């Protein structure tokens, strides 16, 4: 076999991983939802049906219809435009907290699993202490001290979930560290850093993905919740939480309007969680391949693997 074929094969394998993700109904749903939200956020930078900040008192509380597809709010602002613009905030919060949580989580997990005993025990205890602080409470404390802003949300969720990623990933790293294939990797001449990159991290990835997607989902919720409480986005920022807060005051009069931001938040959180689950399943060849083989076994003669 030539190297080129191998190159094609490894590309196919990567595609195969995506295809496996797509083949899972949960993974497909998550992927679509997350892609739609991300594209919407991108779109809002260039275009929204109406200016989301445009107030039109004559057009207050229009029901869903043309040209205001989802109707208007108490100030006559177009709800669809507000939701499209709010996606920007959601994506910003989810991605930034995700990045912070990843950096903190992996760093703490590595420190807690791979270093000298006194250091890793100290880190483990520290993580156990930090995990006792509820993320939303910390965010509210920070907001009370420094005033509400999106950065408060991003940092509190990022740190909070960084700690919980570390909490789950650390024992997993310890477990993988003591497997024979890591020893075999060292026996092939891998340095500790190479071993970390090639054997340890890929083997903790499934657990990590689930935690990360959960962290990003919580970040979306926390942004909505804190903005709802007035501790998150500034009133001038477009935000689903703010929109929900504005609209729910009129819940008894205009019950349909409040549905839209609520639906947007729920769908996004659900999509992120399902994407995380799908990724976990798609990155584990033992889970995905078994499924594939069972399917092929019905149609083909199974291969001989005594």
């Amino acid at each position: 076999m030539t190297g080129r074929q191998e190159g094609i094969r490894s590309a196919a394998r990567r595609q195969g991983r995506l295809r496996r993700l797509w083949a899972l109904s949960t993974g497909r749903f998550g992927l679509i939802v997350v892609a739609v939200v991300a594209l919407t956020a991108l779109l809002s930078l260039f275009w929204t049906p109406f200016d989301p900040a445009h107030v039109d008192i004559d057009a207050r509380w229009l029901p869903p219809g043309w040209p205001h597809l989802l109707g208007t709010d108490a100030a006559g602002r177009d709800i669809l435009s507000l939701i499209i613009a709010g996606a920007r905030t959601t994506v910003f919060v989810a991605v930034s907290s995700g990045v912070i949580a990843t950096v903190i989580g992996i760093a703490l997990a590595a420190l807690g699993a791979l270093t000298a005993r006194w250091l890793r025990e100290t880190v483990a205890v520290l993580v156990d202490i930090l995990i006792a602080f509820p993320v939303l409470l910390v965010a509210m404390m920070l907001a009370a001290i420094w005033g509400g802003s999106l950065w408060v949300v991003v940092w509190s969720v990022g740190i909070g979930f960084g700690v919980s990623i570390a909490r789950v990933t650390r024992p997993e790293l310890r477990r993988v560290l003591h497997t024979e294939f890591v020893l075999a990797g060292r026996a092939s001449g891998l340095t500790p850093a190479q071993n970390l990159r090639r054997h340890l991290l890929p083997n903790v990835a499934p657990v990590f993905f689930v935690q990360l997607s959960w962290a990003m989902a919580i970040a979306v919720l926390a942004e909505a919740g804190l903005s709802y409480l007035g501790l998150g986005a500034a009133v001038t920022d477009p935000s689903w939480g703010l929109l929900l807060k504005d609209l729910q005051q009129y819940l008894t009069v205009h019950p349909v309007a409040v549905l839209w931001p609520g639906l947007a938040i729920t769908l996004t959180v659900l999509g992120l969680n399902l994407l995380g689950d799908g990724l976990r399943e798609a990155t584990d060849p033992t889970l995905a391949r078994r499924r594939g083989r069972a399917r092929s076994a019905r149609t083909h003669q199974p291969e001989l693997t005594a």
Partner: protein
Amino acid sequence: MSLQVRDLTVDIDGRRVVDGVSFDVPDGARMGLIGESGSGKSLTALAVLGLLPDGAEAGGSVRWDGRELVGMPDRELATLRGDEIGIVFQEPRTALNPIRTIGRQIGEAVRIHEHATRREAAERAVAEAARVHLPDPDRIVARYPHQLSGGQRQRAAIAMALACRPRLLIADEPTTALDVTIQAEVLELLRSLVSDAGMSLVFITHDLAVLSQIATHGVVLEHGRVVESAPVSTLLSAPASPVTQGLLRDATATLWHPAAPGGGDAG
């Protein structure tokens, strides 16, 4: 290129588990370390490569080609591991990374020690898979460990250890986890690979019958000490120590020779 072990000791948390083991493996020799479980044979092997677990401390002297390995910095040892000295472990189920393909794992040492590109390593992996008689080597390199049988996994592990053509192979009970027919095939494969390449071999086992099929010289360990060191034929015909006599009585492996090496383990 010879291995010289002198007064090797291993301490775990202050307890001495290998106590003054000495033996020589001259160039091209096939040496066996034999003893019951807990006799310190695996730790001896790990100590040679500097792969002892946390909290275990090696003492004494291990000389490889005139260089002292005990106390050598890990970075320097890493350049020897897999390149000049290879090791095969007991349990093929756990010795392979479950989420990487066989081919990438076989090619790993080649990429590290010979700075091969990904493509070159992939080509080498196919060649090495063919060398250990894995069936359909072109395709098997793209498979994951759980898709292989136990015997095929052990062949893949052997291919991993031999990919860089080491001068010494340490095999730590490589056939213990396999059933008897596969055991004989893997032994046959190991023996032909070792003698074809002129490698030295340190074979670790608790089974004197297995040892008799592959090694020419045996070192018997008990409680971390050498109790007997003699040619295998002597161990079989005139065991001097009670430990060896016990091992001879308990030797279980069937003396079974496959019709032809290769083919595969399917059956």
